[in-house]
């Protein structure tokens, strides 16, 4: 089943022509943005220098840090009266990245989601529960719009209150579910404890975190769904950029809407299909916030074999992140945020370590900090108080709970050159 068969199966010369046409239009659109005007000037190129798709390598990369520098509206290529929606992504040192959409952007994004849902067999008449955060996180409203577009009855259940979520699945006869894979595992366990019958569920779409085939097997066996991987990021609209088809072997990225490169994250050199590297994307249909060669930080590769389903070249399931951004329970956390919080607490030293574990299918973050000698009173309760104070400060900034462990001064590792403060012990 296709939502837009022509676009979904467009290949070869026809695809390349469309991509080039859209790339040129996108470049033209970027020239409304000061950052890109300056970038072209500094690189000694003009939009006319991009004559073929291969010419794209003449354009420098755009990084997440560049977007933060443009806070709040520095990357908008249209006037505010054409903006129809604003989302933000979680920020590092308190400053989020703003993403904005025109009416056309929202329609384009909705279409991609409609393609994805149709691809995995969701259709009009399905009852679709979206257990994603509905505020600034694009996985809430974004997924919602797509499911509505194909005619589902959408239940905007949001996050939390797991028992209520399970009751709704039962009582409403929910057939399709979207959430993060770790929340799906949690939901599964609670449902099992409640002896809930979730047999109405047929399809699960899980994204915003990397997850393993083991988790897929677990979810499929215990939740009774076919589980599909969903990939996206707010800078590229949000969820729906790439999605698994019913073959469950890699993700179809929509080549009419995204120009894909895989690069060596260290050298920036373009890699061939079958070679693992960082995904770099040039969105081809974005109006409000066009981007060129955006470095996603996500590690994947282009797959060599054609897919049975007839759609375009797939990306392998994601291997992780090239930079230090962590995704914990679907929320982006940067080590720099943690550093920032600790720096504001004089009772602890500058050194810290972060450990990420997956305990009962939920991500747990443990932060080790060094006690400062001067504040030690000799009393246990003062130490516990300090621990609580650090935990609260971290929760305020990161919006997630972290365990805090106090360490002796000098006991944490010191680094020469780039610090490796994060140990991700999750097995994906």
């Amino acid at each position, binding site marked *: 089943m296709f939502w837009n068969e022509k676009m979904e199966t467009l290949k070869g010369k026809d695809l390349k022509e469309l991509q080039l046409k859209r790339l040129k239009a996108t470049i033209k659109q970027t020239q409304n943005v000061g950052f890109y005007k300056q970038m072209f000037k500094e690189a000694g190129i003009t939009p006319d220098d991009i004559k073929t798709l291969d010419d794209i390598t003449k354009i420098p990369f755009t990084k997440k840090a560049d977007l933060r520098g443009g806070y709040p509206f520095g990357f908008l290529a249209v006037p505010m009266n054409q903006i129809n929606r604003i989302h933000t992504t979680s920020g590092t040192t308190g400053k989020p990245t703003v993403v904005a959409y025109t009416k056309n952007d929202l329609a384009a994004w909705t279409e991609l989601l409609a393609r994805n849902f149709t691809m995995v067999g969701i259709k009009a008449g399905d009852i679709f529960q979206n257990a994603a955060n509905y505020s600034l996180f694009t996985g809430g409203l974004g997924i919602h719009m797509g499911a509505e577009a194909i005619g589902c009855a959408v239940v905007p259940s949001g996050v939390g209150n797991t028992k209520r979520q399970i009751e709704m699945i039962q009582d409403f006869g929910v057939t399709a579910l979207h959430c993060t894979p770790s929340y799906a595992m949690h939901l599964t366990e609670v449902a099992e404890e409640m002896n809930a019958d979730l047999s109405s569920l047929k399809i699960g779409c899980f994204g915003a975190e990397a997850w393993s085939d083991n988790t897929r097997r677990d979810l499929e066996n215990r939740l009774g769904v076919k589980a599909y991987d969903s990939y996206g990021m707010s800078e590229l609209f949000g969820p729906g950029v790439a999605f698994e088809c019913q073959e469950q072997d890699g993700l179809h990225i929509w080549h009419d809407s995204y120009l894909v490169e895989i690069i060596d994250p260290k050298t920036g050199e373009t890699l061939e299909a079958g070679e693992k590297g960082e995904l770099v994307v040039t969105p081809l249909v974005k109006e409000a916030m066009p981007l060129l060669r955006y470095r996603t930080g996500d590690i994947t590769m282009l797959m060599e074999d054609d897919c049975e389903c007839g759609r375009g070249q797939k990306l392998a399931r994601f291997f992780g992140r090239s930079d230090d951004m962590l995704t914990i329970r679907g929320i982006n956390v940067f080590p720099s945020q943690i550093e920032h919080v600790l720096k504001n607490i004089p009772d602890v030293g500058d050194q810290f370590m972060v450990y990420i574990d997956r305990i009962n299918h939920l991500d747990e973050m443990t932060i080790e900090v060094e*006690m400062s*000698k001067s504040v*030690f*009173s*000799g*009393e*246990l309760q003062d*130490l*516990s108080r300090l*621990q609580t104070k650090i935990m609260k400060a971290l929760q305020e900034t990161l919006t997630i709970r972290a365990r805090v*462990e*106090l*360490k*002796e*001064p*000098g*006991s944490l590792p010191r680094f020469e050159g780039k610090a490796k403060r994060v140990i991700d012990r999750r097995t994906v």
Partner: protein
Amino acid sequence: MSEEYIIKQLSIFSENKAGKLAAIAKIFLDAGISIQAFYIAEANNFGVVRAIVDKPEVAFEAFAKKNYVLKYTDVLAIKMNDVPGGLYEVVGLLGDLGINIEYSYGYRTKDYGALIAKVENPAEAVEKIKNSGLELLPAKDYNF
């Protein structure tokens, strides 16, 4: 006056992990310190080692040199009769005197028991205890 009964206890911050206590004991050994009384208070993943030793200054120096976080804490030692009810007698009286024990630990010698107590205001407590019939053990018995 009250000073002769105020004992210098070492309070040492310690992570709760295998081999940690051995490392601490080794420092005492290497510094030639004799431990009179010893107690560990434990919370999540860390603890405070409390030790009364013969040469607190020497021990303090040895730990500080090894980058430990530690502090002196003033405590009192009260003699207990080594009979059933010995502890009750002491803490009952302390309660009557309005002395709140923040934490305490005990040990026993050949002849008597002793209760080490951290109280809010040691100097004030000493004065109250001296007139109560309880016997305070002098600091010189511990810190030489």
